[in-house]
């Protein structure tokens, strides 16, 4: 008995150890980002020189900065209006897309889930198809459409296609399907209209689904790269995701600092919507 216990305990320890190693590997980049943003350019060039400016030797890294400095942060906060300009561009794009999805995707999902209109299945399949197509496939056609509408090189060229993305419709659809039909029936019998049912019952019971869809969309919108790169020309309309690649090798510390600050909003949003996110991902994963 005792040896079996010992073996079990050892197995457990081994598992924890292996997992800890992988966890550390996963977290390492984040850690490097955090301490790299506190390093001076000289120190960073020393570590990353072989990679950035092709000096001899190998790139290395130090766990903690040798000479911690807030210079990068000060420069970012007080001397880089571009960063904030682009941050607000990103926020505008993200807000526009999320608002659009709330306005159009939510009713679409509710309708699909609750009303047996003819062609519903076909429409649903179409949604899934659109969701599955990667951006690169629809890029050219989207470009042509936006060109015809005269929306190219404006924020709307990013917001509109995003607002009508079918992914959130799909996620919310799964949640709305989970509301029992009997509940709605009894509401109808009690005299509630369809709008009342949607606002009082649908929105409340499907709240977790809606939130998870919005959190997922937020995370995607915040790091959008291809769409702005293709549809935007004017520099002043570029989002933050295009600012970071502009930072050159000689300002590596500054770049790391920018990345660190740009990481904050998604982390907070993720923290807020974590519980709904899990449900949402589950909803997407489990088939009826």
């Amino acid at each position, binding site marked *: 008995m005792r040896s079996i216990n010992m073996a079990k305990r050892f197995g457990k320890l081994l598992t924890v150890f292996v997992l800890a190693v992988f966890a550390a590997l996963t977290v390492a980049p984040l850690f490097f980002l955090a301490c790299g943003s506190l390093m001076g350019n000289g120190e960073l060039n020393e570590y990353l020189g072989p990679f950035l400016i092709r000096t001899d030797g190998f790139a290395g890294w130090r766990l903690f900065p040798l000479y911690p400095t807030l210079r990068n942060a000060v420069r970012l906060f007080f001397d*880089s209006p*571009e960063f904030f300009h682009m*941050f607000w561009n990103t926020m505008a794009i993200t807000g526009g897309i999320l608002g659009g999805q709330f306005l159009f995707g939510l009713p679409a999902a509710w309708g699909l889930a609750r009303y047996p209109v003819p062609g519903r299945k076909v429409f649903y399949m179409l949604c899934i198809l659109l969701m599955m197509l990667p951006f690169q496939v629809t890029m050219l056609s989207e470009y042509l459409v936006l060109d015809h509408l005269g929306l190219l090189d404006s924020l709307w060229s990013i917001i509109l296609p995003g607002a009508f993305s079918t992914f959130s419709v799909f996620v919310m659809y799964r949640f709305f399907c989970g509301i029992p039909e009997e509940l709605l029936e009894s509401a109808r019998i009690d005299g509630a209209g369809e709008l009342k049912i949607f606002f009082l019952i649908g929105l409340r019971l499907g709240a977790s689904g809606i939130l998870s869809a919005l959190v997922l969309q937020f995370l995607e919108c915040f790091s959008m790269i291809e769409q702005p790169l293709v549809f935007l020309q*004017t520099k002043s309309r*570029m989002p933050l995701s295009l600012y970071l690649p502009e930072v050159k090798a000689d300002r590596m510390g500054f770049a790391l600092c920018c990345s660190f600050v740009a990481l904050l909003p998604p982390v*907070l949003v993720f923290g807020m919507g974590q519980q709904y996110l899990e449900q949402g991902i589950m909803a997407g994963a489990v088939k009826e």
Partner: protein
Amino acid sequence: MGKLGKAFTFLLAVMLLLTAISRAAASFTVAQVRVEQPEARRIVHTVNGDGIIEKMDERPVYAPADVLVADVRVKEGQAVKKGDVLALLDMDSINEKINSVSDEIEELRLLNQAIAAREQEDAREKSKATGRAKEDYDNTLSDGKAQEQEADERVEDAKQKVKEAKEQAKKQEQEAYEQKSEELAKAVDAAKKEYETVVGQEKDALLLAKRALEDASKEPSESYDIERIRLEITQKQRRINELYRSMWEGEGSIASVNDQIAALQTEIASLQLQLKELTDVAMEQKKEREQAIERAKEDYDSTAETWAKLVNEAKQKWDDAQLKLDEFLESGEDAAEDPAVQAAKEALKDARLQRQEQARLQEEKERQAKRAVEDSSKTGLKDNSAAVNQLAIERKERQLALLMKERKNGGKIIAEVDGTVTQVQLIVGQKSMDTAAFLMSDTSGGMSFTTQISKEDAVYVMTGDPVTLKSGDQVCEELTVLSTETNEDETVKVTVYVPKDTFTLGAYAFMELAKQSEEYGITIPVSAVHTENERNFVYVMEPEETVLGGSFVALRTEVTVAEKNGMYAAVTDSSLTEESQIIIDSDQMISAGETVRLQEE
């Protein structure tokens, strides 16, 4: 959700605040500039000078030189009024002269261009020649080094050989050395012994001689015979005396006493004879002894001398032997050298000589190569014919201007003031001279103003140019430059004619002369032109699209300044257009590519 939501809201608020702050900060750090567009202008050069208003007696009237005189209308002593025609020049001749002077100017210009081209070519050739000479010099150096090394090696070899030969010879030498030193030591010993014997003998001889001298000088003891005889004589004398007394006292018989006295006297006489004989002998002996002493002394002296000589000789011999030994010991191996070593040394000497000779030759060669480099890199006498030509061009241009003025006047030479002609230099039918055409005494009471200006300024001043004079509150415009004259110290004396009743005599006045250049298409304020490494450039503000929207950057544009005064610079040979926004002023230092913004009014 609640806490994180608050954090998110807080983050957004902070971002908003920082947006405002960074915008405000950026507006402070961006340089504010003032811009101006280039304009077409003439560059005005003003020449200033101050001086005193003086009295003027005679003033010259100039005519262009080398032009045919058609008519002279005044005579010496004739009074003329301002505006009267003094002489008439031939128009054809003027035109011809204008053409020829223009041609000459053109020719000189072409010549200057050719000179510039040739100088460039020469410079290229020179640099090539210098390069070659340098190469030769380097070759010589490296050759010399190689040879030097070889010679050094030879010397080293010879040294080695000498060393070896020496080592070999050393053994033999060692033996020879020991033998020799032994021999020498023996010789020294022998000499010493000889010396010692000589010294010993000397001592003996000297002793003998000394003894002989002592012996000779010893007093002989025989002299008491004389004393005895003297004593006997004295006794006998006493006896006679006693006999005489006894005779006197009557004792004995006188006869016997007389007999006795006579006997005694005879005895005394014989004794006296004996004494004399003895004394003579003693004297003789004394003389002999003295002579003997003299001789012994002589003998001693000569012996001492002889022996001293001998001793000295022996000493000398000993010393010589000792010296030889010492020399031999001191000179060591060099004293007797092996022929092999001698030969090796000879070889070494030769090698050294060769090396020296070679070094000398090399030095000579290097010096020559170096001289060649120096000669080839010598810039030579700067050919200043271009500058001379330039001066000639300027002179001819002035001449041309005078001719043009004369053509405009229709060939008339006009009196500028009232006065009397005092001298006429023009002759009808002949060409005008390079001097003043007329001299006029000024009866109008005209005065002159004289000032000194720098050579640089003098370029803009020409006879006949309009000038403004100021003295106190008085201003007099449209006065003319009478003459310019270059002084020895390279300043230029400018004389201006001052009419009567304008200024008071002796007043201090200030001259202003403005000369306009030809019109330049693009002129910019001088403050906009920056210089770095002797190159002029300007910053041009151009729009640029940035993340924050349209903004401006300062771009650097190289320019060539053709002419400038204190205010404006005429720019040629640049990409500036009349629309270029040239930065003329900035509140911060700016560098190429920097973001700038317009200064708010």
